[in-house]
């Protein structure tokens, strides 16, 4: 017989009914020839049936009212309503020139880093608008990233490089140009295996042409902004700053090697 040897994994997949029919037949034959293994596998199958039987009644119980999904969706909708009014009010304040609501004031000296503050806000706005978009979060997909880089570099009049964040578990989804009060910016979006999204926004900086990594947060999102050689960057997401910081460091390191 030139069959592949039967592995421990095959035996479990046999118990879980997860084998292809041909492989299952091979395991059947193997078990017939090895009664001791067959006994062990039979024990696993009995366990499985016992567990399923023991827990089945839980899944058959009527759901308590607290787990009514329509109600959960509705109560969330109601809770969000006042929040939007608050955000709108804050936006008005911003437009009025108050600025910086998005940033913890103590983290930045306002005179020195107005440019970075603005960039961080723009990145957060872009995140809030595009990251929840299920239909068209990006305009140019990662598969056309050469085209994306070309477009962004032309419009920003700067060579733009898309940071590769795969080592942090984030894949490039794509990107687009976004309008800011300071001209065009390039937005790149990433996601991880859980579907959590990150946005990196970059544009040339008129002020704050070189700034160290600076944390910012506001609403549901937080992130880090920095500037090197006239180009500003902000990376934002919904993860905690502890998680975002190393990713921002990686993006910064890569951007420097342009």
């Amino acid at each position, binding site marked *: 017989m030139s069959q592949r040897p039967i592995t421990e994994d095959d035996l479990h997949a046999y118990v879980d009914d*997860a084998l292809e029919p041909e492989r299952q037949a091979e395991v059947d034959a193997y078990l017939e020839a090895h009664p001791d293994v067959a006994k062990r596998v039979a024990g696993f199958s009995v366990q499985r049936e016992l567990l399923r039987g023991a827990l089945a009644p839980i899944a058959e119980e009527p759901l308590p009212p607290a787990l009514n999904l329509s109600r959960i*969706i509705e109560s969330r909708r109601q809770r969000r309503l006042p929040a939007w009014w608050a955000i709108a009010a804050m936006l008005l304040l911003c437009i009025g020139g108050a600025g910086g609501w998005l940033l913890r004031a103590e983290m930045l000296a306002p005179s020195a880093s107005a440019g970075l503050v603005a960039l961080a806000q723009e990145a957060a706005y872009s995140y809030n608008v595009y990251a929840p978009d299920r239909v068209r979060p990006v305009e140019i997909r990662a598969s056309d990233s050469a085209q994306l880089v070309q477009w962004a570099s032309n419009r920003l009049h700067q060579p733009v490089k898309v940071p590769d964040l795969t080592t942090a578990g984030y894949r490039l989804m794509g990107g687009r140009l976004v309008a800011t009060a300071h001209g065009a910016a390039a937005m790149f979006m990433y996601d991880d*295996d859980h579907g959590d999204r990150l946005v990196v926004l970059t544009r040339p900086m008129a002020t704050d042409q070189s700034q160290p990594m600076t944390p910012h947060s506001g609403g549901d999102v937080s992130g880090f902004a920095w500037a090197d050689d006239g180009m500003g960057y902000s990376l934002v997401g919904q993860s905690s700053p502890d998680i975002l910081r190393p990713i921002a460091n990686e993006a910064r390191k890569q951007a420097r090697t342009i």
Partner: protein
Amino acid sequence: MKDILLLVEPLIPALRRYAWALVRNHATADDLVQDCLERAVSRWHQRREGDPRPWLFAILHNLAINQFRQSKTRGKHKTIEEIDESDFGEDAVQERKLMYQDVLNKLSKLPDDQRAVLLLVAVEDLSYADAAKVLDIPIGTVMSRLSRARERLQREIEGTAYEAPGNVVPLRGVK
């Protein structure tokens, strides 16, 4: 938001079953599932296309793990519930009921990580790849935990030390 009802609602009984099997307490389990559903609603846009089951189980599992950590540091212990007798009723099934009770008690003696794998695979019918996603571990680790969980539960059930036969090739082929 229409698809969320369609896709998530049918999975709630299974989420409750998994939560209950982890914490063995109805109130705690339902709190976990409620948290899980609220998160699922607020992060619905972040999920990937396709089967939402691994995504939902991952949210629930992480909430349960946090709960374990908190209750351990606070030293609080919730009462472990037995199976409700009314679910079984007749005398003829009393013996089966005792067996069920027994296997659940033995399951609760397994380390948390082994118990989770066994429940996801053997009870919730998640594929090995989906279980790996839920637990955020490599598929090889799913297989080794599953193997250890089954061996250990079997030892508990048989009440004897079991010697692994030597003629099974100890290779790990990942499917």
